[in-house]
């Protein structure tokens, strides 16, 4: 028997496969294609205090092995989420990770307070890395003090596991992981999308109404794996890795690089039935390599041989 359980701070997940925020709606949309209780967790769409309309279409554009999105965090706001979505998620025994976004520090704190009192929230993921909104969000995520401030402030008001989500649009992502750890985060998740753009050369206009958007999908995977590897060296808290995961091999690559759990976003658009394939693939791999616990894979990248090679050159 293979054991897929992993530990994210105080939170134990049945398996390391989590639905990534903004790529799985509020979870309930997918209830009839996947049994939500079989997932390690469900990170719901980024929530603000209030409802938001988001950006006008076009909101996505396909790119080589990837996609850009500028949804603009359309959402129903935290109150309607708690009233209308959380009960069903609870009934379906989903491990709910709420992804929260603020334009101010107080907004993050307020959201954390409200959600700490709501029944059925397993953890808070702090979205300080969304490239698609002009104010707030990424402005915290791109400054070390901003990251420190948000995480510490939220830490003070909640007992829920706090997971700041880091942006890859920085020079040294590991320093942000360190800042998060110092300010009391239980884990960090990365990567959010890469700020990017696409132009329609016939009209000479941006392909997205928001001009710029976030790049996700297999295209970014090699950069994301490197960043997870760097963060693994930098901090002791668990790292939740994501960026282009579509196959069991991809998920294993992140775990071997140092991820305790992984999130899957864009791949769910391409194949909403990917979840069981990922879980079966993990089990097969563990059996094939007779490894008892998936947790034993975390950060086991063997760089010795290669470093030798390097030196011998």
């Amino acid at each position, binding site marked *: 028997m293979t054991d897929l359980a992993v530990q994210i701070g105080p939170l134990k997940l049945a398996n390391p496969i989590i639905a990534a925020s903004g*790529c799985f709606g509020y979870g309930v949309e997918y209830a009839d294609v996947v049994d939500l209780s079989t997932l390690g967790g469900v990170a719901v769409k980024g929530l603000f205090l209030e409802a938001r309309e988001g950006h006008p279409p076009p909101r996505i554009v396909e790119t080589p092995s990837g996609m850009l999105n500028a949804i603009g965090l*359309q959402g129903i706001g935290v109150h309607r989420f708690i009233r209308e979505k959380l009960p069903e998620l609870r009934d379906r025994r989903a491990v709910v990770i709420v992804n929260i976004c603020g334009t101010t520090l107080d907004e993050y704190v307020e959201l954390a307070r409200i959600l700490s009192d709501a029944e059925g929230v397993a953890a808070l993921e702090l979205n300080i890395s969304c490239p698609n909104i002009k104010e707030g969000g990424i402005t915290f995520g791109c400054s070390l003090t901003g990251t420190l401030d948000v995480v510490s402030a939220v830490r003070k008001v909640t007992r829920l596991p706090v997971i700041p989500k880091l942006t890859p649009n920085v020079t040294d992502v590991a320093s942000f992981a360190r800042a998060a750890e110092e300010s009391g985060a239980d884990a960090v998740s990365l990567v959010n999308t890469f700020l990017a753009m696409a132009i329609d050369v016939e009209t000479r206009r941006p392909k997205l109404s928001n001009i710029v958007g976030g790049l996700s999908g297999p295209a970014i995977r090699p950069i994301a794996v490197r960043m997870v590897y760097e963060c693994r060296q930098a901090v002791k808290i668990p790292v939740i890795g994501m960026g282009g995961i579509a196959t069991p091999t991809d998920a294993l690559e992140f775990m071997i690089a140092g991820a305790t759990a992984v999130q899957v976003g864009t791949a769910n658009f391409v194949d909403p039935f990917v979840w069981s394939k990922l879980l079966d693939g993990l089990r097969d791999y563990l059996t094939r390599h007779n490894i008892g616990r998936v947790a034993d894979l975390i950060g086991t990248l063997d760089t010795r041989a290669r470093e030798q090679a390097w030196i011998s050159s």
Partner: protein
Amino acid sequence: MPIDVDAAVIANTRLSDEYNVVALDAPAIARDALPGQFVMLKASPGTDPLLRRPFSIFEILRDAAGRPTGVSILNKRVGVGTRLFFDAVPGATVPCLGPLGRPFEPVDRSGEGWMVAGGVGLAPFATLAEALATRRTPATLFYGGRRSADLFYVEFFERLGVGVVLTTEDGSRGEHGRVTAPLERALKAAAADRSITLYVCGPTPMMAAVASLARRYDRRAVVSLEQVMGCGLGGCYSCVVPVQTDGSAHFVRSCIDGPVFDSSLIVWEDLRH
């Protein structure tokens, strides 16, 4: 409940240098499909192109005994993915997710169904016409294309007893001009006591024009919108359209709350993709 099948390409029938019909082996999807629903198809293995493409279910394929064996799509070559489907080889497999979306509600014989199609917008009407025929509901198809070579399956609709009104922009077949012209004359001529429902699918400007005709002549119109779709299941929020809900306009996901909408609820001036 949608399912995903690796559907074998049964046939690829070229209709013109732009249009073709791809027949897919997908009994389970064919069994559940309703008029106006769509499927999400992956154009090729690998990650370029990455996303699936949405296609209306054009025909329900059946065996001799009438049992559903698969679905076909009416494909128009406009870009990378539709080009790959234009060149689809029989025997190749196409991941096919469906059936998806809110279907048309075919009116019963107490009313009349007028289908208004522009170009590839014909796609959802083959199955709707069948549904109207089984209900013995009087049906008319107003069908406009650029040129004669862009008009397909006319006999198919006639065989079902559908009255067909054709227009082409170059006058090479049917009436010269836009489909909205004969449609407006018919609306003007129709007695007020006739209960007519318009079903509309085509380019956005054409659908907007028909919507305003419907408003002017006080007829109900349902439209099938075509937004860029990332997932087809409500996960990505890419496919939103501005819809009047409780007084104000809100962005609504056309993949799960549509693609079929009551045209009077759409905020046409804000609609684009």
